[in-house]
């Protein structure tokens, strides 16, 4: 009886040890990529099998785009806060609320256009096949975001 229990414990230990060792070994590379601050760029490099020259070019494009993206992000956040305050402060659609809505929508369009421009620039730095696949993948993200924001603006109802 004692021997059987000992055997069962040894089997469980063997199973757990094998599982943990294999799992750790098989996921360590991905976990380390996810932990890195520039992990998403490494994802881009591997997903689209970029050469060093292509990656350097795309990295430079990203570095140039980032400040523009940051400025837009600030503007959108400010506009959203303003709109939020105005909606709380009013009980009807005043010209001020209307103008805040227009400003917010305009900023959204500008952001999408800037992002799409950047996506086209990045895709041009890749091979034609990879570039087309990259645009397709990013298009899905943009459209998903667009649908989400419009659904949110409509109060969560999809028509």
């Amino acid at each position, binding site marked *: 009886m004692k021997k059987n229990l000992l055997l069962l414990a040894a089997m469980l230990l063997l199973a757990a040890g094998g599982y943990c060792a294999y799992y750790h070994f098989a*996921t360590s590379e991905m976990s380390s990529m996810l932990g890195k601050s520039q*992990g998403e760029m490494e994802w881009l490099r591997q997903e689209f099998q970029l050469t060093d020259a292509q990656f350097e070019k795309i990295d430079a494009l990203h570095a140039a785009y980032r400040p523009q993206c940051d400025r837009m992000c600030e503007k959108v956040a400010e506009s959203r806060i303003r709109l939020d305050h105005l909606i709380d402060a009013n009980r009807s659609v005043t010209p001020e609320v209307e103008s805040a809505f227009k400003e917010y929508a305009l900023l959204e369009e500008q*952001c999408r256009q800037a992002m799409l421009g950047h996506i086209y620039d990045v895709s041009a730095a890749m091979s034609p096949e990879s570039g087309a696949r990259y645009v397709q993948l990013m298009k899905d993200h943009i459209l998903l975001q667009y649908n989400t924001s419009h659904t949110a603006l409509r109060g969560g109802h999809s028509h």
Partner: protein
Amino acid sequence: MKTPSDDLKNMLAAWRVEPEFRPGFNREVWCKIAASNAVRRESFWQNLLSTLFAAPRLATVTALAVAVLTLSLGSAHLAARNANARQWTMLEERYARSIDPLTRSSMKE
């Protein structure tokens, strides 16, 4: 004066051995070495297997250990594949967010 040991020395100095090997001697030797190595390797695995499966209890334990290890490694492989796919998608989303001012502004609030 010449001594018998000088004669012996001279004879030894003049002695040349020229062995004659029959044709294919080298090949035969290498064949024998290879055959003996193969027998040794074979006997190692045979010994191991016969030791493991000699006693019925030991055989059962060994079979059980192999089955448990196969199951645990198989399930670890599946779990790792799923985790890697999930993390790959997370990296893709992180990249998309990094170039999208709208998503970044929502996260700021």
